[in-house]
C-alpha cells in the first residue's frame, strides 16, 4: 500500500476527486495536506491536484508555488520523492521551477472540458510503468490555460530525453492539430523532470477512474505510482 499526500491550496478542487481515485478506487492510503502545513506525513507520493488555486489570479499556480507546503514539496522532490501535478498542479510545478516551461492561455482563449486521448510516449517512468509505448488513454481535460510553452532549447531537451510523457492524439493515435485541445507545443500533455520523479500533466487521470464516469484509463497512472513506491521500499 502506498501513501498519497494530496495538497490542498485555497481554490483547489480536484483534491476530493484525487482522493476518490486513489483511496476509494485503488484502496490506497490518502491524506489531505493543507497548504500551510510543513509536514508531508511520510507520504510516498505527493499529488498537486487541479483547481483554481488563488483564483488563478496573476498567473495560474504562481501564488500557490509560494505556499509554505511547497518548500517541503521542493525538498521532497530533491530527495527523489514522487510528485504528480495535475492541471493546476502542473502549473504550480512550473511556477515552482520543478518543471521547465510554462502553461499559457488556450489557443482559443476558451476553457475546454472535453474528452482527450493521450498517447504514452515513455512507458519507462515511475508514472507509466503499467503502460506500453504508444498506449492510448482516454483522459479528459478541463482547463483554460494548458497551452504548454518552452523555448526551443528546452523543448529539444525534453523531446530528446524521453521527458515528454503524454501527447494529445486523435482516436487512431496521431498527434494532429485537431486533437490538440489547447495549442500546446508538439501536442504536449505531460512532461517529466530531469530525474524522473516529478510529472506534470494537464489532463485529469483522477476523473478517468471509473467506468461509470466514462473511463477508467487514468487509474493506470496511479497504479504505476503504487508499484513504483513498492519498488523503492523493496530497495
Amino acid at each position, binding site marked *: 500500500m502506498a501513501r498519497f499526500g494530496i495538497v490542498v491550496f485555497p481554490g483547489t478542487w480536484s483534491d476530493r476527486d484525487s482522493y476518490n481515485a486513489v483511496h476509494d478506487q485503488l484502496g490506497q492510503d490518502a491524506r489531505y495536506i493543507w497548504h500551510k502545513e510543513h509536514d508531508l506525513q511520510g507520504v510516498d507520493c505527493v499529488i498537486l491536484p487541479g483547481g483554481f488555486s*488563488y*483564483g488563478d*489570479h*496573476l498567473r495560474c499556480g504562481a*501564488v500557490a508555488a*509560494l505556499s509554505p507546503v511547497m518548500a517541503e514539496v521542493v525538498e521532497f522532490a530533491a530527495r527523489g520523492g514522487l510528485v504528480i501535478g495535475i492541471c493546476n498542479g502542473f502549473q504550480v510545478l512550473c511556477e515552482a521551477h520543478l518543471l521547465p516551461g510554462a502553461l499559457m492561455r488556450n489557443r482559443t482563449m476558451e476553457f475546454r472540458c472535453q474528452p482527450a486521448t493521450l498517447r504514452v510516449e515513455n512507458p519507462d517512468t515511475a508514472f507509466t510503468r503499467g503502460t506500453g509505448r504508444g498506449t492510448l488513454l482516454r483522459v479528459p481535460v478541463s482547463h483554460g490555460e494548458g497551452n504548454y510553452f518552452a523555448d526551443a532549447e528546452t523543448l529539444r531537451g525534453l523531446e530528446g530525453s524521453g521527458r515528454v510523457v503524454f501527447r494529445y492524439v486523435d482516436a487512431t493515435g496521431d498527434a494532429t492539430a485537431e486533437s490538440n485541445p489547447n495549442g500546446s507545443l508538439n501536442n504536449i500533455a505531460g512532461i517529466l523532470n530531469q530525474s524522473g520523479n516529478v510529472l506534470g500533466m494537464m489532463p485529469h487521470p483522477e476523473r478517468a477512474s471509473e467506468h461509470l464516469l466514462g473511463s477508467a484509463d487514468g487509474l493506470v497512472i496511479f497504479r504505476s505510482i503504487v508499484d513504483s513506491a513498492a519498488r523503492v521500499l523493496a530497495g
Partner: protein
Amino acid sequence: MARFHADVHIELKPLVNDPAGLVIRDALRHIGFEGVAGVRAGKYLSLELQAHDRVDAEARVAEMCRKLLANPVIEDFRFEVRETAPAESIPA
C-alpha cells in the same frame, strides 16, 4: 498610411471589486512585503496599427477600446499613440 504604436491601459473603475488585486496584495504581504497597501490589476495592450496620421490613429484606438478592448461598464481605458514609420515609407 503611416504606422503607429499604441500603448493601451485598461483598469477597473475605482469602485469595482477587484478579486485579482486582492489576491496579489495578500500574496505580496504573505511573502514579506507588509507595506503593500493596495493592488489594482489591469491590462496593458500594445498595438501596431496603420492610420493616416496621429489624429486618425487616436480615433481608431479610442474606438477599438470602446468596441472591444475595454468593458465600459466596469473599466476605464487610456492610451498613448506614437508614430513608428511615416506615411511616405509605406505604400497606401
